[in-house]
């Protein structure tokens, strides 16, 4: 079974040379730590920066240079700042190659819910709805089940949607899955996790073809 860093590590393998990547808050943020050194990737943050670097050294924080999580950041050579409209032009115009974000629920048709739980305080969707409605390549990073042990991979989302039919791939603590028209296609098992465990933790239809290999991370 993977921990959060493990999920991030596995997703990092999906990041290809020359990709512009938008990382959501939470596990997705960790992905940046595990991207191979021999490929070139640029991170975009929707508040208006392309070419983000690591967090600043203590004492070098700049209130005017933050990411979408409101964290202080640095920029790398070749970085640029821009306004929110141009930032979402990058996203909506599909110039960003890969979006990685968390989710509360994913349905087997690719629907995603990650912004609202009825009856609870709703903080808002931020840029998530623009990202999922626009991106051609969306990977969801999440735990396979919620805190109560209920599956987050469902036949249908029960929570209010963030976007429809948009998720392509899901990486959880248990597995890597792909959205197909016959249900979640099981691509890989997490180290030490059996297909049986994945079946038990998945409420949606699971498509298993041949032997399911253990992921290499």
């Amino acid at each position: 079974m993977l921990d959060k860093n493990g999920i991030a590590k596995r997703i990092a393998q999906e990041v290809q040379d020359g990709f512009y990547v938008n990382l959501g808050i939470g596990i997705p943020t960790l992905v940046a730590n595990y991207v191979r050194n021999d490929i070139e990737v640029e991170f975009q943050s929707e508040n208006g920066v392309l070419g983000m670097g690591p967090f600043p050294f203590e004492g070098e924080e700049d209130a005017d240079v933050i990411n979408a999580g409101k964290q202080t950041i640095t920029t790398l050579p070749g970085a640029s700042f821009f306004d929110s409209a141009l930032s979402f032009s990058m996203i909506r115009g599909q110039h960003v190659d890969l979006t990685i974000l968390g989710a509360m629920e994913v349905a087997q048709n690719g629907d995603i819910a990650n912004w609202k739980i009825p009856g609870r305080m709703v903080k808002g969707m931020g840029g998530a709805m623009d990202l999922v409605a626009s991106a051609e390549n969306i990977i969801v990073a999440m735990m396979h089940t919620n805190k109560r042990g209920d599956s987050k991979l469902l036949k249908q989302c029960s929570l209010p949607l963030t976007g429809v039919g948009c998720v392509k791939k899901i990486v959880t603590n248990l597995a890597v899955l792909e959205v197909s028209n016959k249900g979640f296609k099981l691509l890989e098992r997490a180290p030490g996790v059996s297909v049986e465990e994945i079946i038990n933790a998945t409420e949606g239809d699971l498509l298993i073809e041949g032997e399911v290999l253990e992921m290499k991370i």
Partner: protein
Amino acid sequence: MINKKVKNVQEALQGVTNDMTCMFGGFGLSGIPENAIAQLVKLDVNGLTCISNNAGIDDFGLGLLLQKKQIKKMVSSYVGENDAFERQMLSGELDVELIPQGTLAERCRAAQAGFPAIYTPAGYGTEVSEGKETREFDGKMYVLEYAFKADFAFVKAWKGDAAGNLIFKGTARNFNPNMCGAAKITVAEVEELVPLGTLDPNNIHIPGIFVQRIFQGDVYEKRIEQRTVRPKL
């Protein structure tokens, strides 16, 4: 050169009254019009509809207006980190319209650029598109979203001149340029008002034509919401 310079924040906010719709630049606490917000608190205007990506924190940014219950409605994309906000929203005192961040930016830009409405894919098939017109183009679904109509836009820039030209710094730019000229009156506050002719015409982010009033803010706290650092090796 048409002079946009006003003496101070008092003069800059003349004409702001109860029940107006106001835009506020900023992302989180970065690039917010600190001086305009402080003056709105002093003016004690209320019933405001605020268009702003976020709602500040309890003791800073728009949170200051929330504390005094000056805000009737928030139009935002993300409103966490604010207790007063949560209480007023749950009690029904505060009306909240949550919209996607890119939609927020583009509805400002539409107002600035004279477009009545835009078609965006964001929010299609979700609560956000309920009751809204939708339409297919090339096999993809879009939601019709209207340009904002606001009375005042309060923006904050790094440098500006008396002609109203603005330059922003880093990610403090965010929604600020998109809100300039998107309201009847745009009030720009700057960290530094520089002499006319100092700014390179090539590097101006927002030409003065989009700004009605400009002043240099007395002080900028520029609070950091999530100070995140790595240790020095």
